[in-house]
């Protein structure tokens, strides 16, 4: 039995490679090849993401929620491997919840960002995770922290991430101005995500937005037919 089993194993991968009984995407890792964005404004942050999760060329989930709550006023935007980012977010949410109970006050966004950095840097060889941490706290107001693949940590007023982000660096650089209002940030994020979704095959679906401030979290969804119109069409 053992001999037969080991023979079967060596034939297995060759069989699937040679015939189409098993499609390619069953063997590809699930990834949130994606576009995510976070913008600070005076009094809070606006975050946004597309909603496509792919395994190879198959869209495993076309209505994914990549904006994950870590605490009441702290969210993270996930890009990279879906499994890795979900696992890290779970760990950080636990650590932050514990820390907040010890402190007996709401945690700082900077603390959440450092917890993400600690996990992403320590396990950098095993992980593929690009994360934007954004939220509001009483000490510094709205903040956005970028933890890209590799585990660096940097605070930026506006940041984009994911495979679709390359296409919107130019748009972001030219259209972001310091001291924008919440409505302007929401419009900027929705337009930027729409532009990226048009150009990046791994991004698409709907646009999910959230704004976080002292008053709480407001979430909204912009469906495909309601997205801003692009002039090149």
């Amino acid at each position: 039995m053992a001999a037969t089993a080991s023979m079967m194993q060596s034939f297995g991968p060759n069989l699937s490679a040679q015939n189409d009984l098993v499609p390619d995407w069953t063997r590809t890792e699930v990834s949130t090849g994606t576009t995510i964005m976070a913008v600070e404004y005076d009094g809070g942050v606006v975050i946004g993401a597309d909603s496509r999760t792919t395994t190879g060329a198959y869209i495993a989930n076309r209505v994914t929620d990549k904006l994950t709550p870590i605490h009441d006023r702290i969210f993270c935007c996930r890009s990279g491997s879906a499994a890795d980012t979900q696992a890290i977010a779970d760990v950080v949410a636990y650590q932050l919840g514990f820390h907040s109970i010890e402190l007996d006050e709401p945690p700082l966004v900077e603390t959440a960002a450092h917890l993400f950095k600690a996990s992403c840097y320590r396990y950098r060889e095993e992980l593929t995770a690009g994360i934007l941490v954004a939220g509001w706290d009483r000490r510094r107001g709205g903040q956005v922290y970028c933890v890209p693949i590799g585990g660096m940590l940097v605070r930026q007023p506006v940041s984009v991430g994911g495979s679709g982000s390359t296409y919107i660096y130019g748009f972001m650089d030219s259209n972001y101005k310091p001291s924008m209002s919440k409505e302007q940030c929401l419009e900027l994020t929705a337009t930027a995500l729409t532009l990226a979704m048009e150009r990046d095959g791994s991004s698409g679906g709907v646009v999910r937005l959230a704004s976080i401030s002292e008053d709480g979290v407001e979430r909204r969804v912009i469906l495909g037919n309601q997205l801003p119109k692009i002039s090149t069409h």
Partner: protein
Amino acid sequence: HCRMGQEERTSGGGLSTTILAIEFDGGVVLGSDSRVSAGASVVNRVMNKLSQLHDKIYCALSGSAADAQTIAEVVNYQLDVHSMEIGEDPQVRSAATLVRNISYKYKEELSAHLIVAGWDRRKGGQVYATLNGLLTRQPFAVGGSGSSYVYGFVDAEYRKGMSKEECQKFVVSTLSLAMNRDGSSGGVAYLVTIDEHCTEEKVILGNDLPTFYDQPPKYP
């Protein structure tokens, strides 16, 4: 693995770059950066990548510097012969077709993408993309490694029916944004404006390029 990343294959004299061309009513505007890199080294920081194919037809070079320059030289020669044969100025589409024929025939050996743009009497200003051996006319075209960063910007900012001055401003802003984000693009911006009456070449130095929110203000 990425088509715009042709520069990854070139270790010596790669024109990883940002190029673009846009059509307006009555002509075209072409723009490019000026950096030629070999690995991490910049071997030429003031290279003009807008190459003349005929009086009113230019092309913008990207990818392998050697391949792109050679294609441009060969097509320049072929266009001269062709225009003598027909006894008048060649059409922009003819120039683009000559470039496309070389790019397609030698697509395995070559690693260059040329955007062909110009003005002719029959169809006015035209822009043609010849990536990987296809031929397509577009209102505007971007290319090179830096172009990935500005797809969103050009999609959002392009409007039909822009004037010549608006097109020039569009090209300069796009180049500036791409040069800020792409390590393989930089230096100065070269601009060529072609219309019925004249062909104007311009250089915009680094400190005269537009700046954006995260850059310190320009010195007077």
